[in-house]
């Protein structure tokens, strides 16, 4: 195998992917501006301090960037080695968070763990842990020429168990994210038409089951389909998002000029920050952000293609998918393509655990990119 002793052959680590790094830093910077702008009203009215959320955001950005820098210098093969441990620990946490007294209830979901004032979502940690574990595990399988059900099956089992645990919180959007991420990683290794068909066919069945168990999801979907007839319900959120984006027009109202952040938009500094961005910076501003994301995804996939090590490929691809599905889920919600579900926009939204983990993931990705040989 060509790539087996690649690093020993070159022995030289390259600079991390600069375009990728630049895209992420730009998004983080733009995100800080938007968090400041969108949270100022709610900060002032709920905390009597217009900078309340911004300050907290800056702290998390600092923490995240530190993780990113540190991880980009770590050898990803060491990280892969810890994959089973990280994944196993976070599954344990997913169990623990379900128990009252350990998991903290916020807005109807038991998703948080409180470690002496430091709160985090185990599902966020699990997302990254799962990616690492999968990359490690599948890279070992990949050395066999044919797909082996015997080894693939446990991966489906792990995916099913972890998604079920997260659905129980309940946190459907994260479960869907992990499902999409897991399947994309599995199928990038095994492109089995038969299996893929079964998976695609089971999607409506799964959705049907979830709606059947929780009728409020049906209401969300009907509200989504007829937002104007359901202005009191979830349709309200979609309409408010449209009003934000639409009134922004091509060039936007200008920084700080959003009207919708005056309590019309729900979660204006987290899940719907992109709507505020669209209102203040218009279609142009949205395109700049989307272009940055596209650069990020493209460069990430490029790293996955060019890195010689199989484990590194899968790790880079897994992280790219991990980011991609979050980005798409958020943008699709804000632009009204899918029903509202609470996913923050990576790097841009105000967010605690999610932001730190996302930056950590980028750190790992940057670390992998250092193994891309310069001739590419």
């Amino acid at each position, binding site marked *: 195998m060509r790539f087996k002793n690649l690093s020993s052959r070159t022995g030289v680590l390259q600079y991390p992917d600069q375009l990728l790094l630049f895209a992420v830093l730009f998004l983080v910077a733009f995100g800080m501006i938007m968090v400041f702008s969108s949270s100022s*009203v709610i900060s002032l*009215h709920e905390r009597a301090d217009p900078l309340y959320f911004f300050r907290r955001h800056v702290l998390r950005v600092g923490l995240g960037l530190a993780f990113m820098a540190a991880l980009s210098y770590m050898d990803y093969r060491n990280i892969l080695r810890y994959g089973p441990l990280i994944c196993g620990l976070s599954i344990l946490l997913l169990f623990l968070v379900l128990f009252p007294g350990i998991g903290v209830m916020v807005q109807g979901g038991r998703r948080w763990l409180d470690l002496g004032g430091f709160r985090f979502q185990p599902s966020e940690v699990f997302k990254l842990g799962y990616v690492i574990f999968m990359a490690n595990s599948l890279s070992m399988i*990949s050395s066999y020429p044919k797909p082996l059900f015997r080894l693939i099956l446990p991966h489906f089992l792990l995916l099913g168990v972890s998604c079920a645990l997260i659905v129980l919180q309940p946190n459907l959007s994260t479960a869907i994210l992990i499902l999409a991420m897991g399947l*994309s990683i599995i*199928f*990038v*290794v095994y*492109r089995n038409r038969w299996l893929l068909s079964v998976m695609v066919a089971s999607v409506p069945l799964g959705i049907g089951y979830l709606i059947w168990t929780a009728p409020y999801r049906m209401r969300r979907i009907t509200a989504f389909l007829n937002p104007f007839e359901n202005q*009191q319900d979830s349709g309200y959120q979609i*309409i408010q998002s*449209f*009003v*934000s*984006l*639409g*009134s*922004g*027009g*091509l060039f936007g109202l200008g920084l700080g000029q959003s*009207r*919708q952040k*005056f*309590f*019309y938009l729900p979660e204006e500094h987290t899940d719907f920050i992109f709507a505020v961005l*669209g209102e203040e910076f*218009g*279609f142009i501003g*949205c*395109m700049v952000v*989307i272009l940055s*994301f*596209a650069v990020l*995804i*493209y460069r990430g*996939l490029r790293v*996955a*293609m060019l890195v010689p090590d*199989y484990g590194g*490929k899968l790790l880079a*691809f897994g992280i*790219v*998918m991990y980011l*991609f599905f979050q980005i*798409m889920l958020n*943008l*699709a919600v804000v*632009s*009204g*393509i899918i029903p509202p579900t609470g996913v923050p926009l990576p790097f841009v939204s105000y967010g605690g655990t999610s932001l730190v983990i996302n930056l950590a993931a980028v750190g790992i990705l940057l670390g992998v990119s250092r193994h891309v040989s310069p001739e590419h």
Partner: protein
Amino acid sequence: MSLMDRNLRLWMVISLAAFVIISARLFYIQVVRHNFWKEKAGKQHVVKQSIQRKRGTIFDRNGNELAYTAAMKKMFCDPSRMKNVEDTLELLASFTKLQVPQLLENIRNARDRGRKYFMIKSDVTLAEYEKIKAKLDEERKQIKKPDEVGLLAGVVYFRDSQRRFYPYNMNAANLLGFVGQEGKGLEGIELFYDDLLASRDGLKVYERGLTGIVVPNSEKILREPQGGTSISLTIDIVLQYLAEKKLKEAFEQHRPKSAMIVIQDPGNGDILAMASQPSFNPNFFSFYTPADYKNRAIVDQFEPGSTLKMMVIAAALEENAINLEEMFQCRGFIELYDVFRIHCDQRQVHGTIDPLTILKKSCNVGSIFAAQRLGSRRLYTYLTRFGFGEKTEVALPGEVRGILREPKGWSGISIAAIPIGQEIAINALQMTSAFSAIVNGGILYRPRILTKTRTVEKTEHSITTTPIRRVISEKTAKEVMKMLTTVTQTGGSGLRAAIPGYAVAGKTGTAQSLAEMTKVKKDTLEEGNNPKVIASFIGAIPADNPKLVMYVVINEPQGEKYYGGQIAAPIFRDLGTEVLSYLRISPSPGEERITTTTSALPVVPYPELIQLQSYEDAIPDWLNLDMLEYDLTPSTAWESKESTVTPGVEDGGSVWE
């Protein structure tokens, strides 16, 4: 390329496609549908709010509000949404006075015709509104579904309105006039100073958050409110009230066609009171006829009669056509061209008289002698200089010039008719001002009604008094005043105008038509069939230091008495007594002995008037009660009009400055 790399390349395409889809979607929302969402955003954020400005207030000279505008609410309902019309009306009637049966019928009719709005009441006071609003909000809280309605919630709604109030009701009504439904002054001061008083609401927009908070720096004033300047009049509402009271009594007693009283400050021409009968209540002007609106002291012209004699004598003295010591012979009549014979009043023969006695006895013959000495040219010139035949230029609408022909247009008997106040028509204010000129030492002032204006921005502008010209010398004026003082003394024609304790200088007037005057010898004064006359008395009090000039005119009194000295003089006396007491003017020197009680006269408390001043409490009562006494309330009269008001319009209402 390995299988894995092919898969990665596929993912590049997939991700690119996903970003393109999102971008296209955003392009559609943000660029293609921009106007649609912009409009939606505008509806959601932008609030239009009118900045209301009230019409200016009219004050009297002491700062009492004679006319002011109050904020009220118009109450509407949506008949098509009413579940139970009767219950709703009964509920509303417990807060504000309503004619339930009539409204019930009208609303049901409106509902049958599919009307979406109906004005229940045009003048709900703010206090009543607050109570109804509280009830409405309470109902609204219990409503669960958006299309559910309560008795009031979802059915009854309000719009801002204004209403002009005249707290003193009929007092000074003819002077003040009134304001029409569209807020335009239609009569009197309200008409003349409409440009100053009238106001126009401003308009502003601002943007608001979901919770109602105002988006910082989003407020824009689209139109500044305009006008609304307040004005202060020279009128003293207490004097006005006293004059109105006396005039109303006289009007009821003598049943004349009309009557008027003018009170003026002779020192500067300020009009202190100006009353007319018939009168009206400007709060409910629509229930009166236009004849009731007339401010007769300036819009009616009439022959003054003997009061004009003092101007004739003053002119003759000024021109030395006669002198004080000169004696005239009064045979009781004067013959002109051997055809016309003009008698003195009541066929009196005054014998040998001096100029003083001419005025004291109101001798026609003597006055005509003086006029003949003066000649037509000079007589005309002096009457013109006294202000007759031309407008006083008082700032009030509809003033008449009166009639004073030039000498070339005079007939042969004009030289005899004019000096006794015939063949000449004046308005009451002209006579008052001319008399003031004699009283104040010879200077004619332009009568002043407005003392100052005050804009909403608190800019004040004072209107100064304007002397027009010196008419006669001070010496002549003093002489004539001395003569006029004897009119109210023993043997004078105006004895009944005498006020105990005070010297009164004045002159009676009883104008008959010329035909009546020249009726040949035959006794025209049959019992119970009095001729048509204008009885008047004009006087200055106190004569030694005149503070006020008062002119009382009774046009065509009915009954046995009709002479100015009989009818107008007692009104003058009664009014003068109260006025002097109110103004706390001390008795004339040398006359204190006569009435020891004078100084002990209490200050008249005028309880009726003072009660009216507490209008804040009085409004709801008299507004509702008085209105309901009439069959036709303005609110039902307006109902048929198409209103631009529609329910549910997103509107921030209004704010008062």
